[in-house]
């Protein structure tokens, strides 16, 4: 029995070994992403595939389609020339920053709001799309405003600003978090909460395809989207900012906005922002 008693120490030792091993893994990356994309003539974009209008995987073709996909293609061509390729990696709000930091993707173009906390982790371009948080509820719902959510259950997506904002606008609301918008909306349909909250554009996309749901509460935040690159990739950041200005000037941006948001009420004035 004496020998056996010592076994209880093992978890502790393992835990320590494990922590040490993980710490040594951490290393900074000094590579120049712009140099790499220029050589390979490919930019790998982290995009969404569960968000109607912005980036949605087509069941028919298996390809992702949407405003951000078209914008990414346009920016890629603007930066690297006509024969350059845009590669798309599907991300969720949970996976996108780790994937950018570990080098799996070159830039995030995935309905990502520019925030001071995130700006400590990644570098943002100038905003490319205005956005604000709103609410999606069933038609029969009595919820009219974000304040009505106190005491209710709200569904959101892990790693979005919507989660943090709830603490500010409706501190008594219970927030359940899911991995993507599809899961959150399915949970809303299943009655797991009284409202779903995220950016108005995302919710408009869902409401346009699902009868019986409406947007309420207007937009109670101002959260423009920006493209994110890894810290220190100044060259790529500058090129992206430059390309954004250029696609706006030559009308490509206007065309893409018209294509995706032309028929959606409330998004006419997007490009003036």
């Amino acid at each position: 029995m004496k020998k056996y008693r010592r076994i209880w120490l093992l978890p502790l030792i393992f835990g320590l070994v494990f922590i040490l091993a993980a710490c040594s893994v951490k290393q900074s990356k000094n590579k120049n992403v712009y140099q790499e994309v220029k050589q390979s003539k490919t930019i790998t974009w982290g995009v969404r595939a569960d968000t109607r209008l912005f980036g949605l995987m087509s069941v028919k073709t298996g390809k992702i389609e949407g405003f951000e996909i078209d914008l990414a293609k346009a920016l890629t061509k603007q930066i690297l020339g006509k024969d350059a390729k845009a590669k798309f990696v599907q991300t969720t709000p949970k996976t996108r920053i780790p994937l950018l930091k570990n080098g799996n993707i070159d830039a995030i173009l995935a309905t990502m709001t520019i925030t001071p906390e995130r700006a400590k982790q990644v570098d943002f371009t100038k905003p490319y799309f205005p956005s604000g948080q709103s609410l999606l509820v069933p038609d029969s719902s009595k919820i009219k405003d974000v304040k009505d959510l106190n005491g209710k259950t709200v569904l959101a997506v892990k790693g979005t600003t919507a989660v943090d904002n709830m603490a500010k606008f409706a501190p008594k609301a219970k927030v359940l978090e899911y991995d993507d918008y599809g899961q959150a909306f399915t949970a809303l349909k299943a009655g797991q909460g009284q409202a779903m909250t995220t950016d108005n554009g995302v919710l408009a996309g869902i409401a346009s395809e699902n009868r019986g749901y409406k947007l309420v509460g207007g937009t109670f935040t101002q959260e423009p989207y920006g493209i994110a690159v890894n810290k220190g990739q100044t060259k790529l950041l500058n090129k992206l900012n430059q390309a954004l200005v250029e696609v706006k000037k030559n009308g490509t941006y206007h065309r893409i906005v018209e294509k995706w948001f032309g028929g959606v009420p409330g998004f006419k004035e997007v490009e003036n922002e």
Partner: protein
Amino acid sequence: MGNFAQAYSWVDIRFLLQGLGVTIYVSLISIALSFIVGLIFGFIRNMKIKYLSAIVGFCIDIIRNLPLLLIIFFTYFGLPELGIVTNPILASIIALVIFEGAMLAEIVRSGINAVPIGQMEGARSNGMTYMQAMIHVVLPQALHKMIPALLSQFVSLVKDTSLATIIVLPELLFHAQIIYSQNSTYLIPMYLIISVMYFVVCFSLSMFASHLQKKFNS
């Protein structure tokens, strides 16, 4: 019933079958590799080589006592930090091989242990080396004993691929989620059909397993 007819249109079924293809592809590769890994490491652990066996044993115990979901995160987010660029398929396969390999190593260990020690001693006293005795006498008996456990672990592996939806592996469950999140009336038809698909794949694997077992026993 209209939902069902619409939900099972060719476009949707094809999309699901693509997902099923990825599930099977990832499963088969992972089964083959994890079996090799499990055999080798289970073996090393049993050889009682000073230090090496103990270290291998530690690692196996840590890995098989962690949730697979964590291992998937580690491979998807951690490997690139070591300079290995991963995509969801590669990360899933590596995670499955590490995790299931450790589970299989444990099965191999207890399988070898279950062979009476007299077998090894007898073989050794007949002039065989340790390796010869292991390969010709102990291992065949051990393998025979562990077949049911091995195969049920393989079935678990197939089911476990569904956890990789979390890193957007385009497998069966994930493709079903894409379909029903775009048309939420398809929710029930989708869960019905993927349950059937998973069941058919896993159950036939189980059937094949018990068939093999009977063959071995006779």
